[in-house]
């Protein structure tokens, strides 16, 4: 039911784990619904220098998490914000219809992590003032 690319990312997920001193952390989903994702980003010169994820979920959830980190790595913050559920699914060679919505949260988690980073940046600026 899954494309070869999905299976590749499921069996060899890229960038799993945590970043303990992350600049931004985003969590989306709910274990009750069967999907929970956390994205950790490290930002340098307005670019995503490092990114890691932790995911509780099905094959699609793990593969989209992995693909999202790969797409985001090295991108500027603005570019990374443009990564969408659709572009993640597309990069994976498509997802089964039933999985398109429920297990395709990784882009949301990335955006949440970036928002978290921006929020912190703002706070730091405030603090410096």
């Amino acid at each position, binding site marked *: 039911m899954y494309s070869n690319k999905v299976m590749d990312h499921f069996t060899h997920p890229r960038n799993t*784990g945590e970043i303990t001193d992350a600049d931004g952390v985003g969590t989306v989903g709910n*274990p009750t619904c*069967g999907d929970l994702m956390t994205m950790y980003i490290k930002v340098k010169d307005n670019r995503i220098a490092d990114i890691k994820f932790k*995911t*509780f*979920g099905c*094959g699609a959830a*793990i593969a989209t998490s992995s693909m999202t980190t790969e797409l985001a790595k090295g991108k500027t913050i603005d570019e990374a914000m443009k990564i969408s559920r659709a572009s993640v699914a597309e990069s994976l060679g498509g997802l089964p219809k039933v999985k398109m919505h429920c297990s395709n949260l990784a882009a949301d988690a990335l955006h949440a992590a970036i928002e978290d980073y921006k929020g912190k940046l703002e706070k730091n600026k405030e603090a410096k003032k």
Partner: protein
Amino acid sequence: MTTNNIRQIYVDHSAGKPVDSRVVAVMLPYFKVLYGNPSSFHRFGQEAKQALDNSREDISKLINAEKPETIIFTSGATESNNLAIKGMAIRNRQKGTKIVTSAIEHMSVVNSCKSLVRQGFQTTFSPVDSYGLLDLVKLEENIDEQTKLVSVVYANGEIGTIQPINEISEIVHKKGAYLHVDATAACGQIPVDVNKDGIDLMTISCNDMYGPKGVGALYLKDSLRIDPLLHGGGQERGLRSGTENVSSIIGFGKAAEITRLEMRSESKRLVKIRDSLIQGLIDPISYTFLNGHPKKRLPDNVSVRFNFIEGESILLSLALSGVFASSGSACAAKTLQPSHVLLAMGLKHEEAHGSLMITLGRQNTQKDADYIKELIPGIIDRLRNMSPLTPKELKK
């Protein structure tokens, strides 16, 4: 089937079973030579009719029914459940419009009951304990004078727990109701005796006894009357019209005969493999628990839950290593809801999502179990390492 070199271990027998070669062998003549319609007057018809009656006898023997005519052939367990519940409810609507069933029934029972709401019936889903055993006190409370039908699963294939049908029967009959039992998963694995168990109607599945899919039966106690679901030519004593699925019914009879002769030794064999597998998963892997009752349990059923991870990703990993099982996870189902059966035992949603069901069959050996025992810890470990959901002590 895509062929590849890895070993293939099918352990999803509660979903579907291969048909025994001996069963296929008796079916074949009914495709090409004995293809008459049992209602036909000539010998092609009469020999088909005779064969149906022989099958009826084989099945009635397996469940110790009072006579072969108590067996009504249907298209499967779903139809038998629908026929039993709707047929009894509507037949007895003047006497009462409440149905009592359990919280761990198959959807064919659940939805048959719900479909009757529009016709003025209500249903109470009686609770189970953490092992999936019916709470008999609550059951008794739930059966009131309006209740003429109680429907209980003999053993649920997902969790394996076997209900005390005998005790349930006593309660139901004391209260003046009839007992329908869904023996889809049980019949063929454990001795089922409609007489001793005090069963009024019982659903039997053919594929669950290594016969073909698409055929089943309803046992209907001799004196009982129900309304038919399918109207037409009056086959099956008018209770189930439609030209009989002759070849499959012949296969059903053979499957029942084989089961009657071999069930005892086969179940013993499976229990050993089952218990070694359960121990081999629960003991070495932390935060892993058995679903269902440890002893009152179907011989084929290994149902466990691994906390902090999700079932579909376990299935996917297993399949990559050639092991085909199932899960209570929403992601592996069409409904996108975790199994109501697991939730009824008090499991949290995330626990239900992390459930793995292994159901063994005639082809499985201890070697298969050993392979699975070796395989799973690594899978669980890998997935847990990826999960944000580990408790403090599991975190790295």
